C-alpha cells in the first residue's frame, strides 16, 4: 500500500502543473500589462486589476469536479454472486484534469475482495472529443501490482463512448483494456446500454492466470431507468468468456471460462 501511495503522489505531482491552466492571474501581481484599462482612470487601478483577473478567471477557467459510479451492481452467476463496482471521478478545467478511476469485484461467498484497482491519471483534452490519459494503476487485490498507464478516453463517431488503456506492470508485462458503451433511448428516461469490454495481453502471465492475445471479453446489456438524470437503477445481463491460454489457466484451476450473469445495479453521478 505504501508503494501505491508513493506512486499516486508522484502521479498527482505530474498532473498538478497541468491543472493550473492560467493565463491572466499574474496580472494582479503587476508583472503583466492589462488587456484593457480605461476604467483605471475612474477607479482604483489595483481594485480594477483584481476585478479584471476575477472576470477573466470566471468566464471559462473555473475548475470543476465530477464523480460517477457507472456500474455498482450485483452479478448473479449460476454458482456465485459478486458485487462489481466501476467508478470514476475527476477534478480540473476544460483541458487538464486529474482523473481517479477504480473498479473491482467482491465475492459474497468468500467474503473477500477478489479484484480491486485504482488509477490516478493526468487527463489532457487533445481534440474536441478525445482525452489522452497517463498515470499509474495499482492493483490493491489480488497482488499489489503497480502499472504505468497510457490511454485515451472519449466519444467516437456515432456516439460510442470509448475508454482504452495500455498497462505496463512493474514486472515488465504489457496488457491492454478497451471498453465501449452505447446508448439506445426507448424513452427519455428508459435507456438500453450495450457495453463491451475486452482485455489483451502481450505475453503469458501465469501467476495472474493470463495468456497472451485476447484474454477475455464481457458483453452486457443494461436497461436503466433515470429516475433523475443523476440516479438510475438498472437490470441487465452479461456474458463473459475467456479465451486461449487464459481460458486454459482458469479451467486448470477449476474455474469456468464462460458464463452468463444476471445483473442488477445502479448508476449514479454527482
Amino acid at each position: 500500500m505504501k508503494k501505491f501511495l508513493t506512486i499516486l503522489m508522484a502521479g498527482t505531482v505530474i498532473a498538478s502543473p497541468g491543472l493550473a491552466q492560467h493565463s491572466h492571474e499574474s496580472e494582479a501581481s503587476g508583472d503583466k500589462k492589462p488587456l484593457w484599462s480605461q476604467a483605471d482612470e475612474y477607479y482604483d487601478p489595483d481594485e480594477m486589476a483584481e476585478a479584471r483577473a476575477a472576470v477573466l478567471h470566471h468566464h471559462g477557467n473555473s475548475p470543476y469536479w465530477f464523480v460517477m459510479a457507472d456500474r455498482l451492481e450485483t452479478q448473479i452467476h449460476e454458482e456465485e454472486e459478486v458485487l462489481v463496482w466501476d467508478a470514476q471521478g475527476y477534478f480540473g478545467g476544460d483541458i487538464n484534469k486529474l482523473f481517479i478511476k477504480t473498479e473491482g469485484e467482491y465475492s459474497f461467498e468468500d467474503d473477500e475482495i477478489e479484484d480491486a484497482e485504482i488509477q490516478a491519471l493526468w487527463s489532457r483534452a487533445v481534440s474536441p472529443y478525445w482525452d489522452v490519459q497517463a498515470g499509474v494503476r495499482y492493483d490493491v487485490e489480488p497482488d499489489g501490482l503497480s502499472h504505468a498507464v497510457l490511454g485515451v478516453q472519449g466519444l467516437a463517431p456515432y456516439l460510442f463512448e470509448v475508454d482504452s488503456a495500455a498497462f505496463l506492470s512493474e514486472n515488465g508485462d504489457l496488457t491492454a483494456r478497451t471498453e465501449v458503451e452505447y446508448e439506445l433511448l426507448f424513452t427519455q428516461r428508459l435507456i438500453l446500454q450495450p457495453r463491451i469490454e475486452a482485455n489483451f495481453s502481450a505475453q503469458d502471465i501465469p501467476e495472474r492466470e493470463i495468456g497472451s492475445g485476447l484474454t477475455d471479453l464481457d458483453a452486457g446489456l443494461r436497461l436503466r431507468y433515470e429516475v433523475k438524470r443523476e440516479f438510475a437503477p438498472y437490470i441487465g445481463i452479461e456474458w463473459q468468456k475467456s479465451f486461449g491460454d487464459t481460458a486454459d489457466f482458469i479451467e486448470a484451476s477449476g474455474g469456468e471460462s464462460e458464463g452468463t450473469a444476471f445483473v442488477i445495479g445502479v448508476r449514479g453521478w454527482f
Partner: protein
Amino acid sequence: MVSRREFLGTALQTGALLGLASLLPAWARPSSAGNMGLEALTGTNFDLTVDRFPVMIDGRKGMATGVNGHLPAPLIRFREGEEITLNVTNNLDEDTSIHWHGLLVPFEMDGVPGVTFPGIRPGETFQYRFAVPQNGTYWYHSHSGLQEQLGHYGPLLIEPKGTDPVSYDREYVLVLSDWSFENPYRIFKKLKTMSESYNFNHRTVPDFLADAADEGVGEAFRERAMWGGMRMSPRDISDVTGATYHFLINGHATADNWNGVFNPGERVRLRIINASAMTIFNVRMPGLPMTIVQADGLHVQPLEVDEFQMGVAETYDVIIEPKEAQAYGFVAESIDRSGQAVATFGPRPGMRADVPAMRPVPTLNMKDMAMDHGAMDGMGKMDGMDMKMDHPSGHEMHEDHGSKIKRGPGVANVVMMPSSRLGEPGTGLEDVPHRVLRYTDLRSLEPNPDTRAPEREIEVHLTSNMERYMWSFDGVQFSQITSPIIFHEGERVRMTMINNTMMNHPIHLHGMFFDLVNGGGHHMPRKHTVIVKPGEKLSVDISAEHIGDWAFHCHLLYHMFAGMMQVVSVLPREVNHPPGMKHPPGHKTSTKASMDHHDHGGMHE
C-alpha cells in the same frame, strides 16, 4: 440551498406570513392580489438594495437574490435627459453589480465588474450617476457571477422628452424569465460534466421506428447516422430547459395566472422584456394580432405579426387592440417547447385564458449546421472526416470562413457554408400557419443617425464544443483571450458574426447599438441584442462613438460564463496608444463631459 429555518426567519422578519404576494410589486401581482396597473419607482434619486429574500414561485418557496426584495426587481422609470442618481447597496456576502441593459451611459457607469468598474463589495453602496441619453423599454440586471439566474433583473422604462410616436390607452410591462430551485452553480456544473443533463427531448427508438415507417428504414437510418457520425443531436435546442425551469411572466408561472385588464376597443401597449437567464421564448396571443412598434427600446415602423421569437435580453413593444370582451392568453413558450408561461388579458380581473397545448419539439436540420444535404449524402464522405467540415469539397461558393478560428478541444464544428438566415422565422417557427416576425421585416421608424458605409469589417465566429460545454468567440474562451477587440472612436465598423454552433445565440454589445444589415437602407433596425441562428452569417454595422471598454457576449448566461464573452475597447482617436496604455494626463473625461458624447444614442429629438 436554503434551510427551512433560514427561510422562516427571513419570512417572519419581512412579514411574509401576511402573504407572499405582498412581496411582489403591485404591477407584478395577479389582479386578484391587487394588480390594477403599473407601479413604479420614479424620480431622479433611487435607493436600491441587493439582498437575498424569500419568494413564492409556482406555489413553492425559494430564496431569490434581487433588488429591494422583489422578483422581478422594481420597475424603474426615468425621463429622457434627466440626471439620475442611483445608490445601490450590496447586502449580500458576495460582490454584486447592476448593468443598465441597452442604455448608452458612460462606460464607467455601465456596471460590468472587471471591465467598466470594480464591482460593488459586500456592505458597500455604489453610486451610479448619469444623464439618461435615450428613451424606450430597457431592463437592468446583475453582471456578477450567476446572480441573474436568482432573480436579479428588472424592467426600466424611459419616457421620451418629446411626444411618443406610439399612441395607446394603457400599457403593461411583461417581464419574461426562467426560475430554477437548483443553485445556478450546480446547474453550470451539471452542464459542464454532463451537457445533456436537462435535455429530455432527444429522439428515441420509437421515434426512429416512426421515421422508418414514414421515410423508409434506409432514409431514417442515414439521417440518424449522419447526426451520430458528427456526434451531435438535432434536438440540442436549449441546454437548460423546463426540466429545471419554471417559466415566469412578471414573476408568475401559468398557474398563478397574471392578469392584465383592458376595455374592449382600447389600444394596449405591451412592453415585453426577455429577462431570462437561458430561455429564448416564442411569444404569441392566440386570436389577437400584435403590432410591433419598438424593438430593443427603439421605435420601428409598425409591423403586424401573430408570433415572434425573442432572444434573451431582447425587448419588444407591441400594440394589441382587443375588440371582444373575452379573455386572451399571452403565451411565452420556450424555444425547445419544454415549457411555457401563460398570462391572461381580459376585460375583468381574475379571468383565465385557455392554456394552449405545447407544440411539437422542433428538430434541427442540415441548414442549422450549414451543411448542404448533397454534401452529406453517402456515408463514405463522412468516414474519417472527423468534423473538419470546412474541408474543400468541390463546392464553388465555398470559402474558408473558419481560418480565423483557433482550433482545439473547444471547437467541435466549423461551418462549411454559413448562410444569411435573417429572412427566416426562428427555430421551430418555420411551419406555423400564421405571420411570424423575421428580422428582415424590421425597419427603424426614424432614419438611422449614422448612414456611413463601414470603413472595415471584422469577423467574429461563435464557437463551441457542446460535449465539453465550452463556449467561445473565435475558439478562444474569455479566460484565454490575448487581446480585446479594438474599435477606434468615430469609426464605422461592420461586424460579421458566423455561428459555428447548433444553437441560437442572442449576442449583446454594451454601449453601442447594432445596426442590423437587413436590407433596410437608411432604416436599419438598431438593436442591442441580436439572435444569431445556427449556421448563420449575419452582419451588423456599429458606430464606435463611446470611448471605453465594453462587454460583448452571448446573453445566454451559462454560455457567457463558460467563456462566450469578449471586450470591445473603443479607443480615443486622437491618442493612438495601444490597449492597456494609460491615457495621457489631462485626457481624463469627467462624467459630465463624457455624457455629452452620448447624444447620438438618443435616437429621438
